């Protein structure tokens, strides 16, 4: 099986961005259908479809919706469009090409979880997509899809756009909530989980862009038809963001379970001439790196990638060829996590700083004997000791890069130069601070 345009069927049509164009291709036909259903029935359908959160954690969406307490408090639906995991850009494509698909999905989800107020939290740098969403929200409001008594159903729902201002941590759902509340985007202790106490301590559901957009197709085709794609435990299709040293980087929709090497060789046109595959980061910068050998039989579903000791994450595939120095690649990742640590928990704030310092000194030829082991030790001490997963996300690439490409790290320390780029050209973060 090759690329399947299930969610992205009409993404290549410019008119699909507008309300009129979206409707021409079947848009806003599922909302009236959903509004006539029992809310619980919609949740059951999403559960039966086995839709798993597309933001990174892969948590079953229907189950998340089922955690809301019946305490009569107002409920909020938040769309996580903070998309900041290095390597990930599929939500941007969805918002740019199909803003109404997201809005329709959100309205169905809001009806299912009985929320009358929803926000799209979009990262501040995404001004292009934010303009498109702003326009689409205005169109949907004018057409009566958003607001009071939607399509005569008696259901009210308002959707507003909230624009962030640059912070990776706001993609973590409780960090996102802190930011939406007007504070620093620092994550909160769980429990209570957002479904119980989220935005303004009210029951809140936070779902990724792609997750919410997928709901439209589940209502259209039903859970069983949705399961036609993907695997038993990872049903459906997924948009993968592929970047790095391939001929045709981009966003490709394939069924979950699709072979990684087919994705690279078929959809992405293979490696650059004369180059060979060295490694792949399969699920965004937080995911442990896979060696070329590990990629051979890898299939892109949550279970297979987990069995290889990594994570499918947000579906961000970074392809690394043999021209890259792994010490150098890790240096940009470690700089990223140090920069993005919110500073709340000591193991993360200090650990990300030390990891960056050690790698920085190796890359600049000042590495000392024992530094490679020290990296692993610091990374191990960061894992599982903090409020949110950022520290683990920062530690996992360190452990996997150093363990799987240890020879390159040892060589760099011993010879004060890269094994791959001995002349030092293009090497190192010359502009760290």
């Amino acid at each position, binding site marked *: 099986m090759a690329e399947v345009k299930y969610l992205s069927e009409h993404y290549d049509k410019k008119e699909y961005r507008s309300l009129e164009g979206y409707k021409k291709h079947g848009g806003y036909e599922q909302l009236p259908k959903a509004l006539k259903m029992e809310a619980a029935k919609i949740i059951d359908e999403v559960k039966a479809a086995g839709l798993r959160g597309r933001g990174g954690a892969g948590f079953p969406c229907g189950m998340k919706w089922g955690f809301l307490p019946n305490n009569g408090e107002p409920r909020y639906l938040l769309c996580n469009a903070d998309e*900041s*995991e*290095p*390597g*990930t*850009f599929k*939500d*941007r494509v969805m918002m740019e090409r199909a803003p109404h698909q997201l809005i329709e999905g959100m309205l169905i989800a809001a009806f299912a979880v009985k929320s009358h*107020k929803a926000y799209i939290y979009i*990262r*501040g*740098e*995404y*001004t*292009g997509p*934010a*303009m498109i969403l*702003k326009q689409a929200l205005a169109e949907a409001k004018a057409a009566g899809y958003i607001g009071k008594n939607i399509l005569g159903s008696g259901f009210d729902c308002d959707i*507003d756009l*909230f*624009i*962030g*201002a*640059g*912070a*990776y941590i706001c993609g973590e759902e409780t960090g996102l909530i802190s*930011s*939406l*509340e*007007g*504070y*620093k*985007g620092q994550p909160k202790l769980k429990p209570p989980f957002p479904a119980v106490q989220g*935005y*303004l301590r009210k029951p809140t559901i936070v779902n990724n862009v792609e997750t919410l957009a997928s709901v439209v197709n589940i209502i259209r085709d039903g859970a069983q038809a949705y399961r036609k794609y993907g695997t038993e435990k990872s049903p459906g299709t997924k948009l993968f*963001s*592929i*970047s*790095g*040293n391939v001929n045709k*980087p981009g*966003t490709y929709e394939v069924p979950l379970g699709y072979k990684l090497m087919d994705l690279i060789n078929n959809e992405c046109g293979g490696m650059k001439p004369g180059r060979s595959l060295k490694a792949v980061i399969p699920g965004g*910068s937080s995911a442990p790196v896979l060696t070329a050998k590990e990629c051979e039989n890898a299939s892109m579903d949550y279970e297979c990638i987990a069995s290889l000791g990594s994570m499918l994450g947000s579906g*961000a595939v*970074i392809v*690394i060829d043999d021209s*890259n120095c792994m010490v*150098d*690649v890790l240096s*940009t*990742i470690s*700089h*990223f996590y140090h*920069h*993005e640590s*919110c500073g709340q928990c000591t193991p993360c704030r200090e650990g990300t700083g030390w990891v960056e310092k050690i790698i920085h000194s190796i890359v600049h030829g000042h590495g000392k004997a024992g530094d490679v082991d020290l990296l692993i030790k610091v990374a191990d001490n960061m894992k599982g000791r903090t409020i949110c997963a950022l520290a683990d996300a920062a530690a996992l690439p360190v452990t996997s890069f150093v363990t799987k490409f240890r020879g390159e790290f040892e060589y760099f320390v011993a010879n004060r130069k890269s094994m791959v780029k001995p002349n030092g050209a*293009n090497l190192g*973060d*010359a*502009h760290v601070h």
Partner: protein
Amino acid sequence: MFKLSAEGLNYVQSELTRYETKQSAIIRCLYRAQDENGGWVSNDVINALSEAMAIPAPQIEEVATFYTMFNRKPVGKYHIQVCCTLTCGMMGGRELLALMMKEAGVKEMGEVSKDGLFTFSKVECLGSCDTAPMLQINREPYTENLTFEKGLKLVQDLRTKGGKLESQISKEL
């Protein structure tokens, strides 16, 4: 002493009631005030917003310092933010940044060029890895699929044209 314009004050008033709590309006109001102050958030900006929003200044300052898109120091007319994370790092983002800085005549990141036109920052993943290397000028839509040649030409064009940007999208958000 920074003062919000009359329209700016109206904007702040309307944003204050847009969300469930007025605290949630801080980010939007900071963007507005930063724009009115030539692209950066001075202490005066924070005090002016504190007064207009009736929110203690430290609460506004903590937001202004936490998020990278608020500049706590003056920037040039074109704040060029080059992505250098992971894929962009692999595809030449760091070298591109260094070349563009040299062309613009600045030595350090965060520095304003003598002609007042340019400030450069190395930024973290902007979510456009398939078009690496890439950059963002101010809050405009991205400039993508760059090469060293295109990057140099961009600096030259911005300088000779008096550097008019095609759009001013951020003003509408």
